[in-house]
């Protein structure tokens, strides 16, 4: 009877002991796997789980949480997790981790399988980089150089200069005008030839006939001379107009100079865009990384709260915690060691996590995570999450150094591109997240090396050379990213002195080039205008000179004939004077002039001696000696040669 009582009870006790000794750990392991799989949505592997009751503790070896978004990758993996619970709190159903440590913590590691619970549909690989703002910043970066190129091209386009437009107009105007003048000048040539021919014809025949011919020629010559005079007057009359046009051209030139100067003042690259183009992506990635940390720390509470709360069954749970309120879960101290990836480099780190709880208000202390990473990229970070008030406040302080070089690039390689290398990079960030509103800044301090500006053939090599010369003085790079707005849609403003310096350098380069281009353009315009003016002048002068040369003799003869005819018309010219004037003129040839002179001398001798020449006197009988100067004789009819005619005789026809 005694054994029949004891044995069943012993068996029950033995089963319970067996369960506690051998069954709890597998059960906890199963629970842990199921719990983490429900959280991550991917496979969770736990190599071993052991627990102790005195003191209450749990140790997990070889745990790997697969990434739901990256096939074949573990989100996080660690070698050992040890948590020691507080007995007093555990007896009251509170999980207070007095101390704990995670060793061999690694992120984003490989795993043998894909790590997915079920592959119902292909999931697109998530873009790790923040797309929209990176693209936006990159676009902004590409724009500034493109716009500048267009501005430069516009400035270097001669068609935009007023000088060219006015000069072209003036040239076209006077080109047409001088064409008309040349045509007019050419019309003189046949007339002059005809006049010359008439002069030649006028020499034939007797003297009276010649005189008649000369009169006709003189009239024609007078017309030619008058037309030539009119042509000369017209030619002289255009000089003021030409001067006026040249003045307009000069004024246009001055306006162009002012315009170029004014445009140069406006032609400055946007320093903000340059900074964004050069640093935007790098800074944003760093900022995004920082924000991810902040978000991770901040959002842990929601997941933690969900996990701490047991699955509610039916019924109602009454809260009797008022006597000694305390959070259901508190992680007082957890040390983490392992490796983490910073800029794709695995670096060892140590971290300390304190006061993690699902109810910070009840705990009354903020959660603090301190992290220190070694290696070539030492990182010190401290994140404080204070949810002890209604509005949670998250503050993050980070100091990150990177001794490796960071290449930067702005613009497109096939166009204008600005490249540089950052060295000894130092990042400092301070972000404060109040609720969903974020405010803070990320400061970058680094040494700038190999800043190089390159461009395709659209940009003149002188610009590239001057820009690089200006950039050679840049040795340091400081940048500040101001963050405000909300966590999901932060407003990011990037300020950097490098943008201003690059902008100044680019401006200097382009300004220098524009000054040179301006001077060249002005010179070209002036040369252009001068060439046209000279061409016009030469053309006019050549035509005018040639016309004068070709018709010089003709015009002179015409002038003389005109003078002669004027004397004839006046009637105060005796035959001797007429013949003498004709003889002295260039109307007749030298040979003819000599004949005329000889004839006139003989006539004068006869008239002076009042006797006929001996050869004639011999041929005329009955007329010996000198004829008396009787009235009515030939002598009396002739005027007294050698003596000035009396006033009365001048008036006689």
């Amino acid at each position, binding site marked *: 009877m005694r054994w029949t009582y004891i044995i*069943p009870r012993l068996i029950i006790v033995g089963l319970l002991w067996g369960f506690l000794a051998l069954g709890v750990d597998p059960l906890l392991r199963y629970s842990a796997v199921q719990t983490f799989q429900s959280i991550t949505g991917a496979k969770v592997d736990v190599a071993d789980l052991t627990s102790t009751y005195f003191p209450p503790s749990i140790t997990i070896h070889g745990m790997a949480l697969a990434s739901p978004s990256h096939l074949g990758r573990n989100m996080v993996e660690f070698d050992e997790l040890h948590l020691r619970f507080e007995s007093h709190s555990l007896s009251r159903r509170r999980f207070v981790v007095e101390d704990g440590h995670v060793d061999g913590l690694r992120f984003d590691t490989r795993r043998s399988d894909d790590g997915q619970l079920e592959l119902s549909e292909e999931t697109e690989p998530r873009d790790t980089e923040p797309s929209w703002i990176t693209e936006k910043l990159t676009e902004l970066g590409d724009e500034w150089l493109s716009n500048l190129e267009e501005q430069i091209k516009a400035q270097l386009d001669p068609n935009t200069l007023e000088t060219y437009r006015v000069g072209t107009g003036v040239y076209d105007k006077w080109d047409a005008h001088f064409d008309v003048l040349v045509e007019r000048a050419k019309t003189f040539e046949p007339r002059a030839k005809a006049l010359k021919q008439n002069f030649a014809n006028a020499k034939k025949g007797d003297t009276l006939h010649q005189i008649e011919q000369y009169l006709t020629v003189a009239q024609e010559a007078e017309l030619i001379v008058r037309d030539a005079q009119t042509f000369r007057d017209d030619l002289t009359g255009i000089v003021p107009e030409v001067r006026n046009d040249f003045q307009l051209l000069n004024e246009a030139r001055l306006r162009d100079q002012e315009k170029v100067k004014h445009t140069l003042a406006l032609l400055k690259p946007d320093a903000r865009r340059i900074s964004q183009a050069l640093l935007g992506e790098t800074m944003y990635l760093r900022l995004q990384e920082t924000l991810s940390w902040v978000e991770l720390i901040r959002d842990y509470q929601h997941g933690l709260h969900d996990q701490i709360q047991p699955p509610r069954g039916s019924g109602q749970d009454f809260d*009797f915690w008022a006597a000694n309120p305390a959070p259901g879960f508190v992680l007082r101290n957890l040390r983490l060691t392992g490796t983490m990836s910073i800029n794709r480099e695995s670096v060892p780190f140590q971290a300390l996590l304190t006061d993690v709880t699902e109810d910070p208000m009840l705990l009354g202390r903020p959660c603090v995570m301190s992290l220190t990473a070694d290696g070539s990229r030492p990182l010190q970070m401290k994140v404080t999450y204070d949810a002890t008030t209604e509005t949670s406040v998250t503050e993050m302080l980070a100091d990150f150094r990177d001794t490796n070089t960071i290449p930067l690039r702005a613009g497109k390689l096939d166009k204008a591109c600005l490249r540089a290398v950052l060295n000894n990079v130092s990042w400092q960030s301070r972000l404060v997240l109040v609720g969903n509103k974020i405010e803070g800044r990320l400061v970058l301090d680094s040494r700038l090396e190999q800043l190089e500006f390159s461009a395709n053939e659209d940009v003149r090599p002188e610009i590239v050379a001057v820009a690089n010369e200006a950039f050679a003085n840049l040795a340091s790079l400081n940048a500040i990213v101001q963050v405000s707005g909300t966590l999901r849609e932060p407003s990011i403003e990037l300020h950097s002195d490098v943008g201003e310096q690059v902008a100044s350098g680019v401006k200097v380069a382009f300004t220098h080039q524009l000054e040179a281009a301006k001077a060249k353009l002005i010179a070209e315009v002036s040369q252009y205008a001068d060439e046209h003016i000279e061409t016009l002048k030469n053309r006019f002068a050549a035509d005018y000179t040639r016309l004068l040369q070709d018709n010089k003799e003709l015009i002179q003869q015409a002038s003389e004939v005109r003078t002669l005819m004027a004397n004839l018309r006046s009637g105060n010219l005796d035959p001797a004077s007429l013949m003498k004037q004709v003889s002295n003129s260039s109307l007749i040839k030298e040979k003819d002039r000599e004949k005329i002179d000889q004839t006139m001398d003989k006539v004068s001798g006869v008239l002076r001696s009042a006797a006929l020449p001996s050869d004639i006197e011999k041929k005329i009988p009955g007329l010996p000696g000198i004829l008396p100067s009787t009235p009515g004789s030939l002598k009396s009819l002739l005027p007294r040669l050698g003596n000035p005619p009396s006033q009365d005789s001048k008036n006689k026809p």
Partner: protein
Amino acid sequence: MFLILRPLRMLLKALVIESTPSQMSYGLALGVMLGIVPKGNLLAIVLGFCIAAMRVNLAVTACAAVALTFASSQLDSSFDRVGVFVLGQPSLRGLWEAVYDTPMMPWTNFNNSIVMGSFLCGLALIWPVHRLSRPVFQKYSEKLSRHIRHWWITKVLLGAEWADRFSTLDA
């Protein structure tokens, strides 16, 4: 072989053979209570231990607990009302807070209305179930023993010695 069969024989004897009608009726009443109380908390475990420590028919207790575990879900609304009534009493709040602040007590999940309601109902049902089931067990226990004795497993485990003893009892 003897060492293996002997404990099993004694276990079977303890479970089904050597029981009085009162032990069986109490076992049924306690099994009902254990069955209607939600599992997965310290209260159910403690109840199981306590019941196992009593001199009751554990077989009947286990059968009743298993049966009521599946059936009690239909009665959760009733248990909930009872639990809310009891736990919601302002005069008892101090008591509940003190109990809750007692080590290990929160693990009993007594602050749940269904747990509390079902536990109280189970306590309340012990005496009625015992009283009602005892005459039944008195009437049918001998028949049940005889029936069980004819099981092949019983014959194997108990052997001839125990068979003779059963015969003596019958006589």
